[in-house]
């Protein structure tokens, strides 16, 4: 196929703000003049289940969903979810993981253990693995819920998305009262990339 396509898989736990993140990234791609498709999951899975949204952009995009083994980047809001979706990653692809643990039901009830070293095991398989304390950074910015935008900052720095375009998209997508915290979270995320990459 002509031209390069970028595939970003955003995974997390229902309620963590994966939808907003995919919408911000997609808006940036629109502003940059790409063809864009985004796939989202609504409904039952949003109730604390494993959720995924997919952003694809390039010259011409057909499928709204990413093929297994074809994601350039997995942006994970939670460590287990990074591991769960890892077979979607392209060889040479990058995984950005929020250093955040949310116990799923079988762990909460003590039936199985949360695999403690899961981010290390991902890093063993994937050379380009970045683990970010996005939740802690978001708390420092004023609200733990801005962790998703911290991750957007790391991602933008990692793949060279123009910061002003991302800020423009954030201004459009985020409610006015949360805007200042989110812009700060985005900038902190960008800086953080320099520290960990």
């Amino acid at each position, binding site marked *: 196929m002509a031209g390069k396509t970028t595939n970003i898989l955003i995974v997390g736990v229902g309620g963590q703000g994966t939808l907003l993140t995919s919408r911000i990234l997609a808006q940036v791609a629109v502003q940059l003049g790409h063809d864009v498709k985004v796939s989202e999951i609504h409904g039952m*899975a949003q109730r604390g289940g494993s959720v995924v949204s997919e952003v694809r952009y390039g010259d011409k995009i057909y499928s709204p969903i990413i093929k297994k083994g074809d994601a350039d980047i997995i942006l994970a809001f939670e460590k287990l979810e990074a591991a769960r979706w890892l077979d979607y990653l392209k060889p040479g692809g990058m995984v950005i993981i929020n250093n955040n643990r949310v116990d799923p039901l079988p762990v909460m009830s003590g039936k199985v253990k949360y695999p403690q070293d899961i981010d290390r095991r991902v890093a063993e398989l994937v050379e380009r693995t970045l683990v970010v304390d996005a939740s802690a950074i978001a708390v420092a910015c004023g609200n733990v819920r801005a962790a998703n935008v911290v991750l957007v900052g790391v991602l933008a720095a990692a793949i060279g998305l123009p910061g002003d375009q991302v800020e423009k998209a954030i201004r459009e997508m985020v409610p006015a009262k949360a805007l200042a915290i989110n812009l700060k979270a985005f900038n902190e995320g960008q800086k953080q990339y320099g520290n960990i990459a």
Partner: protein
Amino acid sequence: MKKLMIGNDAIARGAYEAGATVATAYPGTPSTEIVSSFARYPGVYAEWSPNEKVAMEVGAGASMGGARTLVAMKHVGVNVAADPLYTFVYTGVNGGLVIVSADDPGMHSSQNEQDNRGYGRFAKLPVIEPSDSQEAKDYTRLAFTISEEFDTPVMLRITTRLAHSQTLVLEGERQEIGIKDYKKNAPKNVMLPGFARERHVEVEKRLLKLKEYAQTSELNRIEWGDRSLGVITSGVCYQYVKEVLPDISVLKLGMVNPLPDKIICEFAAGVERLVIVEELEPVIEEQVRSWGIAVEGKELFTLLGEYSPEFIEERLGGGAQSAGFGLDKEIPARPPLLCPGCPHRGVFHTLKKMRLTVMGDIGCYTLGALSPMDGMDACVCMGASIGTALGMEKARGREYAGQVVAVIGDSTFVHSGITPLIDIVYNQGTSTVVILDNSTTAMTGHQDHPATGFTIKGEPTAKLDLEALIKAIGIKNVRVVDPLQLDQLEQALKEELQRREPSVIIAKRPCALLQKPPADIKMVVENELCKGCKLCIRIGCTGIYFIEDKKLAAINPNTCVNCGLCAQVCTFDAIKIMEG
């Protein structure tokens, strides 16, 4: 400039541009956003109807009255609306009517994965299927034109992946077409046998005309490429095929009923190997086979679930396979679960404790069927809890009815729980029904309904009084309890189950997501008192977890909303509600 839109918003936009002035729906994933989005346009009427049958009937009336009308529902909703739909196909329209069926291959949020393209042949109406948001908008506009030109309702069939994928859309201007004249025409609109026989003749003539239209319509197109393989496909599968096999020949069908047989024959003759890629039922395949054309379909693919680009690639041969980083086999599953503070949790905890047989229904509370609640014996369709509870009683006797309850949400009760409740009274059942009244349609994203007192536009309106309604039906024992007051709830259940009369318990508390958690209190586990018995963990709340090496329960302050349920469950008084 083009805008990103989910398919559902694009359908609403298409209806708006086509000059539609009326839209009706009952919320249901993946269709919900269609009419909530339409309602935001100026100068249009939109409603949440009590159920899909009513939505279809209001839609039919609006069409007869001359308005272009949009009716939307999920796939199983069409079953509820099927009665008026089948006969409305006979009467035909005045203002154009488009009914959207949002199917759910893979059952992301549904109880079955029926393929509603089947309604096209069964109910004898045209079915149109877009493959992205731009087509969703354009086809919706065109569907109104087809509806009026051929005097028929038109079904726009979409799937979850189209409904909830965002793709770029170029918006157009609204056509102000106004309301058509209404003239009484009983032979067309009164479907008693003498008139309906005449209308059936028209339906068959119309289908032949539609078939001719399908041969020349822009909805169906051949994209010639490498002729060693030709694929017939429609909907989002078209996009998957183009993604993985961009060079082959494709016949893209935008109209999937009636099928354009001449185009299909031409395409079949032009390729060496013919394959049909369609999710779920072999709707296209069986018809093409019946014309004596050699074709491959379900022997390569599956009747089950949602397709994906890699699945099509694997079956038809294409690029490289996944690199196989897979760690997924070792990862604990993460099933969806009730939210912290959810009032349903109190009900399911109590039902489990009392070891009752629970006939369930459709909503967030269906999650009560999963571990650790394991609190449901059956769930079939919207409203079925009450009828199935009565059936249990009639099969197993009155004594057994003392341990059976029906649980049903407030929105679901209004949707289709009222008539079976009448049946319980009429046919002398003694069932106990628990209405889980969280004052919203929660699962689909908090839509209003007749018992919330607000319209789809958020305007105040008459509020259905559930207690008064239930009493009027003839249920003498109606009581309201707080589902997060466990003692109160258990007492009410014991008393009502013992009664040799039907009862309704309204377990009333607003959805936890619509309430701000109290800020002046917080939950604390007192480690000296905690025995590590895990009773509190069995309520399946993300607000509390177990520290395995210390054998202690602990509150997760990030998720806990201070509802106090775990404190009530603890038999050692180890969980306290602290001020400040």
